């Protein structure tokens, strides 16, 4: 499908690049993804900044921040280091994970490489376990095309339960759609229903016992299931965060209403 063939989508949203002036932004958007998928290119295209873009894995080792505004709303964009997973503990992976968990972005854009979707989906699935406010940006569509790969973004969005947008960031194709998908997720116009794993029975039972306790100990904690699963896996960093009260502080700041169950079908209405 074509990235700009749909008449209903707001392809000509009012957009302004705002460089590093991130003060007073209304929303925080995180950019995550595997290394070398074009996160920095998207970051630069949206913010108008010139963060160095290199064609090699591990270019961005610290997170970069910039801003843009759409229709009067100011967005802070945080470019996270590229990671393959959120499970292991190299420093750049930890920067990404901590930001998703403790930074509580209003929306997370996971950039995936259309030419290596399977490997990239590993990270998407892990992010979905932490937060449902996700837009998947299927980048490098032109390279996929040249390699004879046809990516059905609609089917991808249906499976994942979050919006998926095809882009060619180098040529700035699909970025307007990406931004409108992000604002849809943030405003709540797009209701997401993130795909989450059904754990094996034994793990499920253990979660059943741990999650209610967590809820009692830290009321209002977001991503409680994920936190519980990490505790079961003996994740050192998450254990520390529970013990030190770091997670409790997070819950205090971000009191959210009880999670609303939604059906997967409503998830992508308005996303495409």
């Amino acid at each position, binding site marked *: 499908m074509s990235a700009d063939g749909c008449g209903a989508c707001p392809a000509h949203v009012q957009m302004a690049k705002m460089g590093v002036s991130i003060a007073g932004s209304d929303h925080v958007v995180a950019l995550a993804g595997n290394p070398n998928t074009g996160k920095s290119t998207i970051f630069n295209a949206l913010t108008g900044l010139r963060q160095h873009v290199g064609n090699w*894995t591990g270019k961005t080792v*610290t997170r970069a921040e910039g801003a843009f505004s759409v229709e009067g709303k100011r967005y802070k964009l945080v470019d996270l280091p590229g990671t393959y997973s959120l499970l292991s503990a190299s420093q750049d992976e930890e920067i990404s994970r901590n930001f998703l968990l403790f930074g509580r972005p209003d929306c997370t854009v996971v950039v995936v490489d259309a030419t290596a979707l399977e490997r990239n989906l590993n990270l998407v699935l892990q992010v979905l376990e932490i937060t449902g406010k996700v837009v998947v940006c299927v980048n490098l569509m032109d390279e996929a095309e040249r390699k004879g790969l046809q*990516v059905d973004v609609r089917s991808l969005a249906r*499976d994942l339960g979050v919006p998926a947008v095809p882009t060619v960031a*180098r040529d700035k194709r699909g970025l307007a759609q990406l931004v409108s998908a992000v604002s849809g997720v943030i405003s709540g116009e797009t209701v997401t229903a993130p795909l989450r794993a059904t754990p094996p029975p034994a793990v499920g039972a253990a979660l059943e016992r741990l999650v209610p306790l967590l809820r009692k100990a830290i009321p209002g904690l977001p991503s409680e299931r994920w936190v519980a699963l990490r505790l*079961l896996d003996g994740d050192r960093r998450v254990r520390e965060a*529970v013990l030190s009260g770091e997670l*409790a502080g997070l819950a205090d700041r971000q009191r959210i209403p009880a999670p609303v169950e939604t059906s997967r079908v409503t998830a992508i209405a308005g996303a495409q």
Partner: protein
Amino acid sequence: MSKPAVSPREIVRRGDALRAELGDELRDQIVAGLYDRAGRIAGRSVQAAGSGHWNLDQRIDRVVTSRWLGLPLMMALLGLVFWITILGANVPSQMLADALFRVEGVGAGWFSAMGAPWWLTGLLWHGVFRGLAWVVSVMLPPMAIFFPAFTMLEDLGYLPRVAFNLDWLFRKAGAHGKQALTMAMGFGCNAAGVTSTRIIDSPRERLLAILTNNFVPCNGRFPTLIMLAVIFVAAAVPPAFAAIAAAGSVMLVVLLGVGFTLAVSWALSNSLLSGEASAFTLEMPPYRRPNILRILYTSLIDRTIFVLGRAMLTAAPAGAVIWLLANVQAGGVSLADRSIALLEPLGIAIGLDGVILLAYVIAIPANEIVVPTMLMCYLGGTMMVDVSAYDQIRAVLVDQHGWTLLTAANLMLFSLLHNPCATTILTIWRETRSAKWTAIGSLMPLGIAFGACFCVAQGARMLS
């Protein structure tokens, strides 16, 4: 908010107890589940058709990363970049030097005509301005050629191939294969190279990469190496081969640096930082069409102007300091002469001299200004009259101060190995948060530099 019913400690305790019940397979189950779901979803949304492009990348990779051709090809590419840099930078350097030193003369003339005191004219024009003029004319042209060429290789996707080619060497040294990448970043700037070691997961291997990053010459040191190569090596061969010989010798120094990186990594991983090299997957990105405009922007604005700006910022006060040292006298002898005399025996012992060592002390904030500092020390308060930059430098060094090929070779060696600049030292501290490793990272290279230069100097003197 009321006090929570369950304490955090209790939660963690329960989690640990449940984990013990579940056994060790949880992590494997989680990962297997992830792969399984990712595979199924990708299978549903991706359809592959045959295409030739896929194979072109692989065919190029087969040559570029081949066992026999990989390393020679890499050296040839690097040599080509140096050759283009040296060939192209020569003339613009001389033109810049001509123009800027004419400005110095005119400016100083105006000051005198307006009745400014001699020390003000001296400090501003023969101190600060001259320092800046040297930095700009010696550094700007090589950087404006070297950086775009290097960025081009980076944009193409060549750097990971370099890491691939060098991986087995680093593994043998007990270091991480990704150290080849952080080393490549060091060619740009050692401080950036040290920061980029965050891509290495294991703390031990990361520390190795941090401590040895200094052994590849950064941008600040390339102009020194290139200048020495042009003045001493190129001048010693027939003009037709001058550029090739100069490029070859810079190449040799770089290879020596890589050699030291490996040797020191090996020595450290067999002593202070012992352990096994860990395995990792290195992704070969596809070759991408370089975006010329972006390359020019990145390399000229981000790198060239940035490095030059930093050099000028440190060169200006350094110029003033040198002028003061040369013109403030204590007991009839200038401060510069006093400190040079003090450092002279040590300098001679390692095949250099007092002036060079003094220049390195003054240039601790930034390596970029070593050569300008040296020249200003040699020239003291005197004015330069000759017009052509490299010839002029050669006349000063060889004819007036007795430099030999040995001095040049040792200076190249010293410049390659000596302590990191202040910015890099600060970065090492920021990344390690350890006074011990910061001290080792600064003093170990200095010790190695003194040791290596001493051996070369003594060896050469014994042979002659």
